[in-house]
């Protein structure tokens, strides 16, 4: 079973320490325990959502903000550039 590490109890993401397949459960370790079923394939080192997160809410890893949800996210979803966006150094937003 793929492993997923949670770094802080406040986090809504876990990092996969093994590649995982859609429909497969992964084992949570670190600051959480239990299992989470993956809704999509998640490559090694990529993140999975571990708590439903509404659009524009903060995404937390290490207990710190790493960006915001660019749409509503369900626990078990692969989380990456397609659904998390940075809020820093965004000259493109200032220009609009």
């Amino acid at each position, binding site marked *: 079973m793929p492993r997923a590490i949670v770094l802080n109890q406040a986090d809504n993401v876990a990092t996969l320490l093994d590649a995982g397949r859609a429909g497969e459960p992964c084992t949570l370790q670190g600051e959480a325990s239990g299992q989470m079923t993956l809704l999509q394939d998640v490559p090694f080192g*990529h993140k999975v959502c571990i708590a439903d997160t509404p659009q524009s809410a903060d995404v937390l890893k*290490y207990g710190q903000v*790493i960006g915001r949800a660019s749409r509503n996210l369900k626990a078990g979803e692969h989380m990456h550039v397609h659904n998390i966006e940075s809020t*820093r*150094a*965004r*000259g493109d937003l200032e220009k609009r």
Partner: protein
Amino acid sequence: MAMTFLGYRRENDAVGVRNWVAVISVMDNCNPVTRTIAQTVSGCIPVTTLFVRGQFGADLDFAYESLAGLGRNPNVAAVLLVGLEDSSTEEVARRIRTTGKPVETVHLQPNGTIDCIAAGTRKALKLSLAASRARREPCPVSALVLGVECGGSDTTSGLSCNPAIGRLADRVIEAGGTIIISETSEFIGAEHLFAERAVDDSVRDAFVKAVRGMENLAIERGVDMRESQPSPDNKRGGLTTVEEKALGAMAKAGSSPLVGVLRYGEAPVKKGLHFMDAPAAAVENLSALAAGGCQLTFFGTGVGNPIGSMVAPTVKVCGNVNTLETMADNIDFDASGILEKGQKISDVGDRLYAYAMDVASGTRLSSEILDIRETAISRFALSL
């Protein structure tokens, strides 16, 4: 018992961990001669550069100072400067001679390439012979200035190799040594945490100003920094945002207080943890750290980035079990036990500290043996 390493004590009491004659180009048009001499004479490293000719004002002064910083690095026993003409060459030579180390010069004008190579080769031969008389002696860890950097990062970096380097950093500082962390843009999103570690307001303000300055550069240009931070390979490795990358990158600095902020290539005068304001790309950043006097650079990598510094040998530390297999030739230290075997970061970091002493005492690194080393000095203005 305090740890020691075997180093080369220099004229100015700085300690080198290598004993090279640096053949340094004063400007880009000298590079072919620099490379030829360094290839011909054993014990030499070529330190090439781009531009300089045509730079002016503060930008030129910065270029000279960076080249001189590489020459002043204590890993360099002696310097042969290769210049186009006398006055610019002397400008760099003057800045290196403050260390008391031998500095020789050759010029392309007026006699051309072949005569310059011949004269330079003879001078390098003598410098290399003299340098070979130096002997390593036990030196305290307090004599070390180590750069910490990361490249080809992924999500394993912030969980394994970078915190292991952070443990090394804490151990070196505890022993009275100095650590320099840099890569300004890679603090965006973590600077609020790092700023809290500043010893006073002026250090904190200087650090925050540097990071905000970098962020404003992206904002003023109207660009989305996400095109380059995180880089495409960072993203393949699972890093989603610069904030996430920064939080992992900061782990390299351990937990010591931040005592000083340095300009690009500036050498620290205090002991302890410093931040250097310099661009993040590997070759550019390693060159800045080497110009600032780092004897070694510790480079955390996830998806793998092989390049090393010419002047400050680069220890590649990796905690990604896949990269350790596919790029084994390029990795010096395996930190994968943290994620694969549940090893403690402190234990792996202590092992890295012991390895650091070996490397400082002469154990060679992959990028040295394979000669995958490069120099790139940043520039901040256009030439005339």
